[in-house]
């Protein structure tokens, strides 16, 4: 459910014609041809051509950074670049992308340099301190986006090592699936994925590690042919069970698949080759899909309900059992095993990079990740980026409260006039938006990422702060995390929205205070009307969107309870039908509220249809009991799969979203008396320019240009 899908659903719901393309396809034209000529000249093969050009470019960049333009100069400079960027962004191609990234880099660097040098207060006044804090926050964000650019431009190339041809020499593999806290459907899914791994069946053994023995899971394991190990300790951590299981199993390699998703079919084929080739290799870590397409482009997905590590590890058992894990509290077990192996002197390899870890700050403090593991520079940058992203809530809260510093406390955080600030900041934002949009493509729209990150800000801020200070608090983190899966906990909802409400109120106060300022709009306070007040307004909008998301979360929880009553139809063997209601919809043991009392034999086969909107879903069921006007039926096994799919689809509320969005005129935010004149003026301007273009084209100038075009 990404914004584009929601928009298309909304359009369908309000009977609007579907836009065939949200975005025009990229052009391929003259700029691409020039780019190709530039990159394919023989000049690049000259010795030292590349280093010299790089150094020269770097020097040019640094020089351009520090040029101090006047306001008019900076304006002209920005306009030229902005015009060029807006023109060139329509073209496809890597060179164009790099150009856009470079321009964004330059403009943002200029902006930050100017901020740090020219807009801070003097001495150590509160102006200076808060202004400096704001500058650091902006720098943080910029560093994050720069690292994102780097990651996009130089992605890590994945390597593979081939297995020997004879299958007899392939090692035996034990697959560990830690399943505590998982429901049966998830276990079923993970088990079938594990058994779908492409590896000789006699050399593969699957173990399900559970926190407490469950009969249903045991039966499920038996039906697959996996071994079920249920531990009686209630430790919620996978690493404890893994350690215990390591001493109980005897495969040569152990693959641990933690997290809710399972790896691809050829995972073992891709990774086991390294172990065969290099006997001293102790461990290999990969993200879930080392060769899959990476959907995350700028912001890694960190959703509250996701479990911590979405990583896999494959280890050589003989080396791992030599040490014991005395820190069962660490939640990222693969990291730990890697640490220990390294300490013991064994090799540990890393394919891909883990940008999706929540407790990365943990690792930073305890294990000095950047220095201990031998990683190439791209991985270090990626780790740095994930750390910066983890601390993103802090600059975000700085942004939310910065205008309040002026409006409520009179602290000048930015000391400049609005015109100069606009001249520097507008290209910074504009180019940043263009570059991010270019990299993000169709998967991320700019504002939605902000809203989502803002929602996560509070959730992540507390753990962030604590985990840097004390490691033992991470145990509380694990408890909180599993507690978050329980959706009925209302206090969680308050924890999420209360700070936002407070900051929203403060921003509203700030708005009122700013507008009530007796000096507004003239006098020295002119900057607050052009900077801080609109800033406040933006904050208010973002926070309102955040609160709306939290409200929708609550709405979802209520809706789940309401959904249990769905209109249904009971079809009896005699051909008669009865219009009834379900009482507990998504459950397999369905109970129906009948409008009249009647007699049905227990065990008779009836068909039940559930109506959802205009759709009807029919399932064969068997009558379990009839008490008064409540009929209990059990869905047949053959239809169980489909029934659960239908339940999940209905509960996911996908098509409901358009109903939640504003009404049919939401795409016309301006009222008609305002929107129509603007629209018609714009149309008139367009037709006029077209006519002008036609006239010129027909004139002698146009004919001359045409001739030139045909010649080239």
């Amino acid at each position, binding site marked *: 459910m990404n914004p584009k899908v929601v928009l298309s659903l909304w359009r369908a719901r309000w009977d609007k014609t579907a836009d065939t393309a949200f975005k025009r396809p990229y052009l391929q034209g003259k700029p691409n041809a020039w780019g190709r000529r530039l990159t394919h000249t023989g000049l690049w093969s000259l010795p030292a051509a590349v280093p010299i050009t790089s150094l020269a470019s770097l020097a040019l960049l640094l020089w351009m950074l520090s040029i101090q333009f006047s306001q008019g100069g900076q304006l002209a400079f920005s306009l030229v670049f902005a015009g060029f960027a807006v023109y060139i962004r329509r073209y496809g191609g890597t060179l164009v992308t790099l150009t856009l990234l470079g321009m964004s880099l330059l403009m943002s660097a200029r902006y930050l340099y100017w901020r740090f040098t020219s807009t801070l207060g003097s001495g150590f006044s509160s102006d200076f301190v808060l202004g400096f804090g704001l500058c650091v926050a902006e720098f943080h964000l910029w560093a994050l986006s720069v690292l994102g650019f780097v990651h996009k431009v130089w992605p890590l190339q994945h390597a593979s090592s081939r297995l020997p041809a004879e299958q007899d020499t392939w090692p035996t593999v034990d697959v560990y699936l830690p399943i505590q806290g998982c429901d049966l459907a998830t276990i079923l899914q993970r088990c079938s994925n594990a058994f779908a791994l492409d590896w000789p069946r006699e050399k593969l053994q699957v173990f399900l590690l559970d926190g407490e023995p469950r009969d249903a899971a045991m039966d499920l394991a038996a039906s697959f042919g996996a071994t079920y190990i249920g531990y009686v300790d209630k430790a919620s951590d996978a690493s404890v069970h893994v350690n215990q299981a390591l001493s109980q199993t005897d495969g040569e390699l152990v693959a641990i698949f933690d997290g809710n998703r399972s790896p691809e079919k050829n995972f073992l084929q891709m990774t086991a080759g390294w172990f065969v080739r290099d006997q001293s290799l102790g461990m290999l870590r990969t993200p879930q899909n080392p060769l899959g397409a990476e959907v995350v482009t700028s912001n890694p997905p960190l959703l509250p309900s996701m479990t911590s590590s979405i990583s896999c590890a494959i280890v050589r058992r003989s080396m791992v059992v030599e040490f014991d894990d005395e820190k069962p509290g660490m939640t990222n077990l693969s990291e730990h095993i890697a640490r220990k192996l390294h300490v013991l002197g064994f090799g540990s390899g890393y394919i891909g990079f883990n940008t999706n870890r929540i407790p990365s700050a943990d690792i930073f403090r305890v294990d000095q990740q950047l220095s201990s593991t031998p990683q190439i520079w791209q991985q270090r940058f990626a780790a740095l980026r994930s750390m910066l992203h983890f601390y993103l809530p802090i600059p975000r809260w700085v942004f939310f409260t910065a205008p309040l510093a002026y409006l409520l406390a009179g602290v000048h955080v930015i000391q400049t006039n609005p015109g100069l600030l606009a001249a520097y900041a507008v290209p910074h934002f504009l180019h940043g938006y263009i570059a991010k949009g270019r990299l993000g493509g169709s998967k991320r729209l700019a504002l939605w990422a902000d809203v989502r990150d803002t929602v996560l800000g509070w959730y992540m801020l507390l753990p962030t702060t604590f985990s840097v200070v004390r490691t033992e608090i991470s145990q509380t983190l694990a408890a909180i995390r599993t507690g978050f899966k329980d959706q009925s906990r209302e206090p969680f909802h308050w924890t999420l929205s209360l700070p936002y409400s407070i900051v929203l109120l403060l921003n509203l106060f700030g708005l009122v205070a700013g507008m009530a300022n007796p000096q507004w709009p003239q006098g020295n306070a002119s900057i607050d009307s052009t900077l801080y007040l609109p800033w406040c307004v933006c904050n208010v909008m973002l926070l309102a969107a955040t609160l709306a998301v939290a409200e929708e979360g609550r709405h979802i929880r209520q809706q789940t309870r309401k959904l249990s009553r769905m209109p249904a*139809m009971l*079809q009896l063997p005699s*051909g*008669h*039908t*009865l*219009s009834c209601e379900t009482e507990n919809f998504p459950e397999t043991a369905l109970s129906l509220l009948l409008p*009249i009392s009647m007699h049905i034999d227990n065990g008779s086969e009836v068909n039940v249809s559930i109506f959802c909107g205009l759709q*009807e879903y*029919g399932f064969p069921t068997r009558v379990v009991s009839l008490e008064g006007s409540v009929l209990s039926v059990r869905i047949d096994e053959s239809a169980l799969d489909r029934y659960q799919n239908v339940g999940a689809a209905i509960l996911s509320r996908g098509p409901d979203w358009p109903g939640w969005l504003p009404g049919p005129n939401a795409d016309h935010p301006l009222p008609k008396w305002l929107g129509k004149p603007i629209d018609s003026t714009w149309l008139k301007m367009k037709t006029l320019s077209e006519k002008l273009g036609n006239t010129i084209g027909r004139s002698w100038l146009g004919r001359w240009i045409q001739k030139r075009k045909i010649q080239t």
Partner: protein
Amino acid sequence: MSVIGVVSMKGGVGKTSVTANLAAAMARVLGPRRVSVVDLDPQNAMRWHFGLDGSSSAGGCNQSLDGKPWNHAVLATAFDVTCLPYGEADETEREAYESLLAREPDWISTQLQRARLDRDAVVLIDTPPGPSVYLKQVLACADLVLIVLLADASSYATIPAMESWLHEMAAISARSKCAYVLNQVDRTDPLNRDVTALLQKHLGARLVPIHIHRDEAVGEALAFQQPVLIYAPHGQASHDLARLAGWVIDTLNR
């Protein structure tokens, strides 16, 4: 006065039962003395749905041939619906009636005007299946035309013929809305399910979103000479017909 024509290209789709049951459902919503049913099907089967006495032979056919207004042959029922049967007519009378209708293309609408019904009265007209002179006249004077289909392959095959017929008639009946109604839908039957999906996809918005489910109660209600809403008020067919009545009222009001 709103006129609803219930038509079909093919016989045996349940047109008469849909008309009768829909009339009873609308009478439930709108109240007594507002809903009337006119039977133009020579089969003269409408009266059985309302438990009318089969002894009288008066009906629209005879009255028209005798030049008398229809009001005299209208019968009141116990279900808040007034019914005008076709009447007992032998072959010659029927042919005379049909040639009368062929000569005067506005005959039906004139008779309806002469009946001097209230402004908020609703008249449902049942027609024989296939292209006929009755169908032409009803298409000319109806505000809403409901085309009844079964969810089977032969119904699907008649859609092109219906569409071309409607297209020809569009010149005459520019103001009438058309909608397809699916009858006897049964999800447990695979062919039924598939044809339903196919029809939904093919007809799109022209298909009424409310389908009438297959229910034994409909046939049994006719055997008991009652509308199915009275006979089995909690059956799915009754439920669907009640919703269909609501939909029809909304459509007429729009």
